[in-house]
């Protein structure tokens, strides 16, 4: 429970209060909606890919603090990165949140996204943190809508390279 207390730390609360890249993109090349029917979290993600590079990204939605902060920090992190780097982050974030990545010992590229590590001790909140990443994966793969309860849930299915 020490980790869950640490979950609501200032960086997450700040991103919840003032989400970065909040809004819409004029000419999005990729979009997707993510939905968690269990709690009503709902986000819309728009990307602009210039070749392989993420040129622009924006999100909107109604969600809990964990989901909104995760979306905000995700967009800030992936902007300017290649699609491949973003796919790697999707995998690593998922593995951290579900507790299969020992982020203190194993190599990763998560940087300050490790503030979300505490969700692995809160099974009911893991999906809140993962939803934006799940939605990013859907956008890359031209899936217009995705749900934490659907069959392609990254909690259950391999993502990225698959």
């Amino acid at each position, binding site marked *: *429970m020490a980790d869950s207390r640490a979950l609501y730390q200032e960086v997450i609360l700040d991103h919840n209060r003032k989400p970065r890249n909040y809004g819409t993109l004029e000419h999005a090349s990729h979009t997707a909606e993510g939905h968690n029917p269990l*709690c009503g979290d709902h986000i819309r993600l728009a990307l602009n890919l210039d070749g392989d590079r993420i040129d622009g990204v924006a999100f909107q939605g109604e969600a809990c603090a964990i989901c909104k902060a995760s979306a905000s920090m995700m967009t800030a992190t992936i902007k300017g990165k290649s699609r491949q780097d973003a796919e790697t982050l999707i995998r690593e974030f998922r593995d951290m949140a579900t507790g299969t990545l020992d982020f203190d010992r194993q190599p990763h590229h998560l940087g300050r996204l490790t503030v979300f590590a505490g969700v692995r001790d809160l099974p009911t*909140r893991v999906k809140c943190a993962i939803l934006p990443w799940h939605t990013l994966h859907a956008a890359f793969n031209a899936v217009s809508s995705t749900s934490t309860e659907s069959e392609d849930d990254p909690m259950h299915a391999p993502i990225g390279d698959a």
Partner: protein
Amino acid sequence: MTAIQTALRSRPQAFDVERIRADFPILKLKFDGKPLVYLDNAASSQMPQAVIDRLVRYQSAQHANIHRAVHTLSEIATAEYEEARRKLQRFINAREEREIVFTSGTTDSINLVMHGYGRKFIGAGDEIILTTLEHHSNIVPWQMLAEEKGAKIRVVPINDAGELLIDAYESLFNDRTKFVGVLHVSNALGTVNPVKQMIAFAHARGVPVLIDGAQAAPHMKVDVQDLDCDFYAMSGHKLCGPTGIGILYGKAALLERMQPFKGGGDMILSVSFEKTIYNTIPHKFEAGTPPIAAAVGFGAAVDYLSAIGMDVIAMHELELLDCATEQIKRMPGVRIIGTAAAKAAVLSFAVDGVHPHDVGTLLNQQGIAVRTGHHCAQPVMQRFKVPATSRASFAFYNNMAEVDALIAGIRAVQKVFA
């Protein structure tokens, strides 16, 4: 002073909540050094030592299969199981013990009515009246039936307080109305519905009524003869009993006319490949070996509640609800969802700018267990335009210190998000 407080003061014997609390081993738990404040009783209640002991005694000295063998142990188990049925009969004042069918819980009870009554007596073009307040368990089975038969579901709307619009209910009736399903107390909002009046109106038009009593039975005295309901469903685990057991009360004349839902042993009188003769009620609906221990435990649980007195329980819980409601009303940035004039001890609320799941996680860090989510009542959430709420639900073993802990807990949540 509210009417309830006046009544409490005039009681000859004060309700000693601390003595009651001592009966519940789980209330001694601590998480991270913080005492458990259990306010999720609408989801499931806790079990007193007397019921735990009863389960142990049954398994240690009384268990065998029932209605089967001539040996002593089977006779003892059968007698205990049937005694539990009589305890439930008395608890809800049913006329006859054969009107009590053991099920696995409220959901199972409603499905039994859908299959046993609905599939036989509801057809194409017929109408079923439900309400916006219904739990999914009293919506989905009827949708399945409506789809199968080509029947139609009509929905009674609610006002901004979360009360049923009774005029609208009455105007929904027509020649095709064949069934009414309504919950007695809303699990999401706490609204106590005027079911007696609604039943009388339906009966005047020859329409039977099912009451989902899952949330009412723990909070008030239920008298099925006084209500004159045709069916009443409830769950053991919300009444300090075990999970996996519940009852369907049905008027004998209706149960007699219903077709069985599940086939198997115990529900038959004789079987050949040419013809099977069904058993009499209630056994016709209890195919296979039932959860005997759970039924015996359920019987012990209603004995425990009856010894305290459902009226006394209701008064104490309403005092907790009043106290919590008054304090939350004075808190800036907190809104109560469900403000019906008649409420049971269920308190749904929203904290401005904080998602209910964040409220739930942060309260949990203070040892306070509340439910967050849509409470299996998504139409209610849609009506109030919220994705979810936080819900504190009180039982008779909760005390004023726990109400204060909840209030302090909500303040702490607001501080984190300030």
